[in-house]
C-alpha cells in the first residue's frame, strides 16, 4: 500500500481517514476497502523512513488530527516506483513446474494435468463472468481489472493448448 499512499499525498496533504476514502473512491470495487488501522500503520512506517511527515492540526472540541504530507525523499521514492517496470505475469508458475517434473517422477500424466488445469481456468473464467455481471457499468476501473484478468486467463489457456500440441 506504500506507493498508493505516497501517490495520494503527492496530490495533496491528507489525514488517514481521507486517504482511506480516496482509495475507495478511486478504485471502486477494484481494490478491497483498506482498514483504517492498516493505513495508520503504513503511514507510521513511511514517516519513520522519512518519506512523509506529519503535522498536528488543532481542531475545536476534538483531539488534534495528524495531516501527512510528502517529503522530498518521498517524492523521489514515488518517482522510482512510477519509473520502474512492473512485474509481468508469472509464467514459470507452479503448474509449469508440475508439468515438467510430472513425467520424470511418474506422479501424474501430463495430459491429465493439462486437462485438469484447463477446467480450473475455465472455472475461474466463469467466476469472472459472474463478477463482471454484478459490477455496475460506472465502476470503470473495476471492469478494466476484470477484463485484464480475463485476458490473462485466455493467454494461459492458449498456452495450455500449445503445451498439449507439443507434448503429445
Amino acid at each position, binding site marked *: 500500500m506504500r506507493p498508493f499512499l505516497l501517490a495520494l499525498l503527492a496530490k495533496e496533504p491528507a489525514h488517514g481517514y481521507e486517504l482511506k476514502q480516496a482509495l475507495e473512491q478511486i478504485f471502486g470495487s*477494484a481494490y478491497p476497502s483498506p482498514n483504517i488501522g492498516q493505513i495508520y500503520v503504513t503511514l507510521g512506517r513511511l514517516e519513520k523512513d522519512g518519506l512523509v511527515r506529519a503535522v498536528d492540526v488543532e481542531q475545536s472540541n476534538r483531539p488534534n488530527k495528524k495531516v501527512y504530507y510528502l517529503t522530498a525523499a518521498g517524492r523521489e521514492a514515488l518517482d522510482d516506483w512510477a519509473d520502474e517496470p512492473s512485474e509481468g505475469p508469472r509464467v514459470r508458475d507452479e503448474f509449469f513446474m508440475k508439468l515438467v517434473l510430472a513425467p520424470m517422477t511418474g506422479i501424474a500424466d501430463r495430459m491429465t494435468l493439462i*486437462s485438469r488445469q*484447463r477446467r480450473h481456468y475455465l*472455472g*475461474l473464467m466463469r*467466476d*469472472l463472468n459472474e463478477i463482471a455481471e*454484478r*459490477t455496475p457499468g460506472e465502476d470503470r476501473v473495476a471492469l478494466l481489472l476484470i*477484463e485484464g484478468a480475463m485476458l490473462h486467463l485466455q493467454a494461459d489457456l492458449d498456452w495450455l493448448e500449445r503445451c498439449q500440441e507439443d507434448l503429445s
Partner: protein
Amino acid sequence: MINTVNLVKIYQNGGVPVPAVRGVDLRVERGEFVAIMGPSGSGKSTLVHMLGGLDVRTSGEIWLDGKRADTLGESAWALLRRQKIGFVFQFFNLVTNMTVADNVELPALLAGASPREARERREHLLGALGLTGRADAAPAQLAGGEQQRVALARALANRPSLLLADEPTGNLDSRNTRDVLGLLGEVHRDGQTIVLVTHDARVASLADRVVSLLDGQIVDDGAVRAPRRRPRGTAGDVVELRG
C-alpha cells in the same frame, strides 16, 4: 439429442488420407450447452460439420433425436436443418446479393414462419446483437465482426432446437462478444441445445460442459464449475483469483 458412435472422417488429399476425426463418441443431452475446444487442425470444424450434415462421415454413426442421421441424403439433411438445426459457419457464408434483414428472415420463412413472425424475430435478433442499424446493408458492406453476428442471427432465426456454431466470436471485440454471450445465454435458457466450437475462454466458460479435441480424438470431457461459491465476489477478488 445428439449421439455419435465411433465417428470417423478421413479426407483424401490428392490420394493421401488425412484422418481429421478419429473415433468420436459424443453424447449431448437436450438443452445442454457444450463447448468444443482444441488446437487448430484437431478436427473441431469437421466434427460440427458432420453433426449438421455438411460433411459426410467416413464411418460410424450419428443419431439426432433418436433417429439415425448419417445415412440421410443431402435433401433429407437440408430439410432437417431447415426444421431444427441452426448452423454458424466459421467463415459466415452469408448470401451476398441479399440484405442483412433478408439473410436473417429467410431461414424463418423457409421453416414456415409468417412474414410478420420472421420480421419480428429478425428485429429481436439484430437488436440483441447491436445490428439494428445495419438491417438494410449488403453483407459486403459489413466488417468481419458484423458479418459474424449476422451469421449468428441467421442461424437462430428459425428457433432451432439445435444450434451448431463454429467459432462464432472469432472476429469480435470484447463488447460485441458480450452481446453474443448475452444472446447465447438467452437461447440456452430457452432450452435450445448448443454445440459450439470456440477458442474464446469467456464463451467456453458459459457452457455446461467442455469437450477437448486433440488429433481428432476426445481427450477431455467434463463440466465447467466456478471453483468456489462466493455469493458476493467483487472485482477486488480478482487479485485473489490470480493469486
